[in-house]
């Protein structure tokens, strides 16, 4: 399958998945706000956690996959990998915006400040800007092969940052809470809160797949237009 038919198929299936994910996200809102207990010490603001953490996980997953597919592109020279990397980077930046806005909104009532320049927050902000730069680089380069190679290198550099961000709460003194699920021991969260968090994470994952599928279809359509312009 190639050309507009293929691009249209990706856009259609991505749209169906995205609509399903957004409806499921509405369900997560109901579950989190109406059926998950209020944490005694932090109050209602703790419920921001059910959006902030899945958004952070999805953004880090998206950025990791950009790096992995970039590395594979440099090895296999397959354009599908470059298209996927571009799609994953853009969706990762969208999730990154959610992570970087909900984090300070939680921090203000809990820490008493919107932002602090500790290791976890600073590295995460740096990773976000790196992928904004990745998208700007892609937009500035017109040769498809050059664009794919240069952006693959930037994506790989971003991938190197991801483990540091996860481990930063152990390596440095930081205000940011330590992992409560992604750690060697059992999750330290009451069952109702853990259930809401995991459901939300699955919904964010579904949304990631839907949005990346649409963006992949868009990249296919744009490539076809570029090829037509080059041929003219």
């Amino acid at each position, binding site marked *: 399958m190639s050309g507009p038919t293929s691009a249209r198929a990706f856009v259609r299936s991505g749209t169906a998945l995205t609509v399903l994910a957004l409806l499921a996200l509405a369900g997560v809102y109901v579950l989190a*706000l109406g059926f998950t207990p209020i944490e005694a010490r932090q109050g209602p603001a703790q419920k921001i956690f059910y959006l902030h953490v899945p958004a952070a996980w999805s953004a880090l997953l998206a950025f990791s996959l950009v790096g992995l597919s970039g590395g594979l592109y440099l090895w296999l020279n397959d354009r599908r990998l470059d298209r996927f990397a571009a799609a994953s980077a853009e969706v990762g930046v969208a999730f990154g915006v959610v992570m970087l806005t909900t984090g300070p909104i939680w921090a203000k009532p809990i820490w008493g400040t919107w932002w602090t320049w500790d290791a976890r927050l600073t590295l995460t902000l740096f990773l976000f800007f790196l992928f904004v730069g990745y998208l700007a680089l892609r937009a500035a380069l017109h040769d498809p092969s050059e664009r794919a190679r240069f952006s693959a290198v930037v994506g790989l550099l971003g991938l190197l940052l991801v483990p540091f961000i996860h481990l930063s709460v152990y390596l440095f003194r930081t205000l940011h809470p330590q992992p409560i699920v992604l750690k060697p021991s059992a999750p330290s969260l009451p069952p109702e809160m853990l259930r809401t968090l995991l459901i939300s994470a699955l919904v964010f994952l579904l949304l990631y797949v839907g949005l990346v599928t649409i963006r992949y279809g868009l990249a296919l*359509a744009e490539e076809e237009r570029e090829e037509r312009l080059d041929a003219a």
Partner: protein
Amino acid sequence: MPPDNAGYMVAAYVVTAVILVGYAVSLLARARSAVTGNSVKREA
């Protein structure tokens, strides 16, 4: 008694919905425009 900070929670949930729905709608509009534009030009 938990602290009364529900306003922050509401703000975060609204901001998240605006960002995600806004991005999904704009992405879909760009994709549809690219796909339809290509088909129209191909037929022409």
